[in-house]
């Protein structure tokens, strides 16, 4: 079995969600078949500048074939086109222009897929929102399996992606909420799909005491791991934690791990440790009383899964359907939407050891049942096996013609998004 993993950027040092997801999947599927990664020469998801050499190299034993990006992203043009397609009535041509402006535009990668698609049994496309997935899925001629990593943002409301969701052989969803959203927007219930997610190589015995000693952290604390950014809900987290600090019953500190784009509030119970390697990160999570995940937009949240794998409860933002759904399904985390709920849930985890312990145990079991690597690998292999016995479809709708591209009849993406169903998918997904 030969599989192509197609992703917008790839490398050991690239830690973006979908890219890391693709690398983990490629490395684990490489144990069951021949895997080749097709990607671009870019490492920066803002500029898409060609920073790596085109050609083939090995990353952790997996061959990686890189292709040049035709042009970098112009933020002004991209912003203007985003405003157009997200907020106004527009045409298919506008959306295709937006896709081109978003990048990474790599016709060489698409040409390669067109010519060599028959060399692979399946092509796994990661992240539906980029150029490589939209054109590459068509070019692979019935071999495309999509890992959408879709979040609840305006991009899901663009019309160009609906044929993509309907035209691939199968879709590997990250969560039941993502599946429900894509079904609602594209009506692709007939496309084979399974909720898979991603595993994590969590150490068996993380040294929590070593972390406390190394960073001189005493007392109970909650940890946040990730980019410290307003888009990740960190501003609200700081506001809410400030409210928690005013409550004399609360004793938890907040430890922040990750690069920051926001000013960190100055308080003796708020510590920012910067970017840490995986060892320190896992030890920090093991030492923490809880992980806080304040993000509004998540397609899965690997950090939350890692915390559960380490037996730690998660306090998630209840406005994110995926996180809320994960908490409900796992019975391993609480969630908040208001300041009062934030304080109440945090104090519940802090002050009721039995509750925190039970949530952590449930989380560990939930991870083991659903996100352990053998489970993930089995789901992929089962899907390959299933598709082997099915006749491939036509491979999606044809590209729109000259008139179709210019007809200004597509609603603003944000309007489409507003009509999509909200809320967690339920306990059993």
């Amino acid at each position, binding site marked *: 079995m030969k599989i192509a993993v197609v992703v917008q950027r790839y490398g050991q040092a690239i830690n973006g969600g979908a890219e890391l997801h693709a690398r983990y999947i490629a490395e684990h599927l490489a144990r069951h078949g021949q895997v080749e990664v097709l990607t671009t020469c870019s490492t920066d998801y803002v500029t898409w500048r060609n920073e790596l050499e085109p050609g083939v190299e090995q990353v952790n034993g997996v061959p990686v074939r890189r292709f040049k990006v035709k042009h970098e992203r112009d933020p002004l043009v991209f912003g203007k086109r985003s405003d157009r397609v997200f907020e106004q009535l527009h045409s298919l041509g506008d959306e295709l222009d937006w896709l081109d402006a978003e990048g990474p535009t790599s016709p060489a990668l698409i040409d390669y897929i067109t010519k060599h698609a028959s060399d692979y049994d399946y092509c796994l496309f990661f992240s539906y929102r980029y150029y490589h997935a939209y054109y590459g899925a068509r070019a692979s001629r019935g071999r495309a399996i999509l890992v959408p990593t879709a979040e609840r943002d305006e991009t899901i409301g663009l019309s160009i992606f609906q044929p993509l969701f309907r035209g691939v052989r199968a879709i590997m969803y990250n969560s039941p909420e993502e599946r429900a959203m894509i079904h609602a927007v594209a009506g692709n219930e007939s496309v084979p799909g399974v909720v898979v997610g991603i595993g994590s190589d969590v150490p068996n015995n993380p040294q929590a005491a070593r972390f406390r000693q190394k960073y001189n952290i005493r007392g109970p604390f909650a940890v946040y791991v990730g980019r410290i950014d307003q888009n990740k809900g960190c501003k609200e987290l700081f506001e809410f934690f400030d409210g928690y600090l005013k409550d004399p019953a609360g004793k938890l500190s907040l430890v922040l791990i990750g690069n920051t784009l926001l000013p960190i509030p100055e308080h003796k119970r708020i510590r920012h440790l910067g970017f840490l390697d995986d060892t320190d990160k896992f030890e920090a999570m093991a030492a923490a009383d809880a992980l806080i995940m304040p993000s509004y937009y998540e397609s899965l949240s690997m950090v939350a899964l890692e915390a559960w794998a380490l037996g730690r409860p998660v306090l998630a933002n209840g406005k994110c359907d995926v996180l809320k759904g994960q908490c409900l399904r796992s019975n391993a985390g609480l969630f908040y939407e208001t300041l009062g709920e934030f304080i109440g849930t945090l104090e519940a985890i802090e002050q009721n050891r039995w509750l925190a312990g039970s*949530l952590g145990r449930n989380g560990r079991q939930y991870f083991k049942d659903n996100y352990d690597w053998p489970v993930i690998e089995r789901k992929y292999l089962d899907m390959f096996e299933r598709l082997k016995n099915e006749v491939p479809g036509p491979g999606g709708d044809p590209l729109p013609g000259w008139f179709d591209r210019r007809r200004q009849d597509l609603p603003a993406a944000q309007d489409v998004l507003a009509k999509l169903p909200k809320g967690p998918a339920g306990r059993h997904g």
Partner: protein
Amino acid sequence: MPDFNVRSDSVNVEQIMEQIRGRIREKRGVDYTEQQIRELAAVKLEKFLDPRGVRSDLLDQFRKAQPAYEPPELPNFAFEDATLFESHRAPIRWIRKLLMPLLKLLFNPNPLIQALNIQSRLNTINAERDARREAARRQMDQLYYELVHNLVVETTRTGIEVKNLKMRVESIASRLEFNERRARALEGAVVYRSTEPDEPRPQRPAPQIPQPRQQPPPRPQQQQQPRYTPPQPSYTAPVPVAPPTQTAIAPPAAVTEPPPQAQGAGVPGEGPGQRSRRRRRRRGRRGGGAAATIMGAPGSAQPGSTGAAGTVESVDQMDAIDRMDDDGSPDSEEMHDAAAEQVEQTGIAEADHAASTAEPPAVDQAPVEHAHVEQPRVELVAPLPAAPSATESSSVAPAEPAAAPPPARDPADHDPQ
């Protein structure tokens, strides 16, 4: 929030979240989000504010009423030094220029030209200034309306907060009132007995050397029994001085005819009406300390006396009951009344006991007395009808360890774990 009613390993996050939200509602009233407050301000404002004074859709109305401002094109003219002689026909311009000296012979046009030129410039300046002022005024109007709108929203929020605070104040006031009542009942119970030293008391089986500070609190089920009434067989020996473990010291009149006070204080045959009347009396009394001072009850509030010690112990018990309240759960008035009743009875019994110790001392028998020091509570609880075996064990074999009360369960121990 340590006390969740989750008692099994199968955690249900939905239930826990419901409990947390319930606790938040209890603590802070309804927790509105910003969006909800805006909705309330826009739609249901009349429930919180006087609808005649404020309109909830001010901003929308204002925007509808205020079209986009465009400054009007005011008429004006341009007047320069050559304006008088301009013409689109070149020959005419040439002739006018040729005749200019002749014109200037007749009058001087320069002041006229200057005046009109200044007037033209003034017109332009004024028009621009008016346009700027109008635009600024409209911007200010926008700000004012924004301000008013925000004030409406904030007033709504404040109204909700006031409502919640009122609820909290009411809740706290009712708790305070109850606690005061309970404190008065406790204090009054101790003083009540000590102010009647000369009244005959029902006879006790064996007055002991009291060790009130070392005594554990009585068992609840024993406290709920009616107050001590001496068993009849023990009254047959009206001996003034008796060994503490065998017979009690009491006048014979007390045996045959107990005083009405003692009967009303909790005899087994007491009716519910009597009990409630007694409770009303206690509630009606003022603070016991003040009453003791006024009445000058001997030994009623002496430091170190038995009565004081009993009070301290009773206060400890009341504190234990108070801790029951600290879980934030709604209180049952009846439960607290019953608990206060128990504590009060204990206090009265101890006050009785203290008074009895002031009577002529019993003949000490060293081993027996020693045994009673070790088992002081036995004496208090022994005569209660609900514990006949304890009575026997205390009077016959006072050193029996089985007669000692078990350690009282901490009522504040609500931890479900």
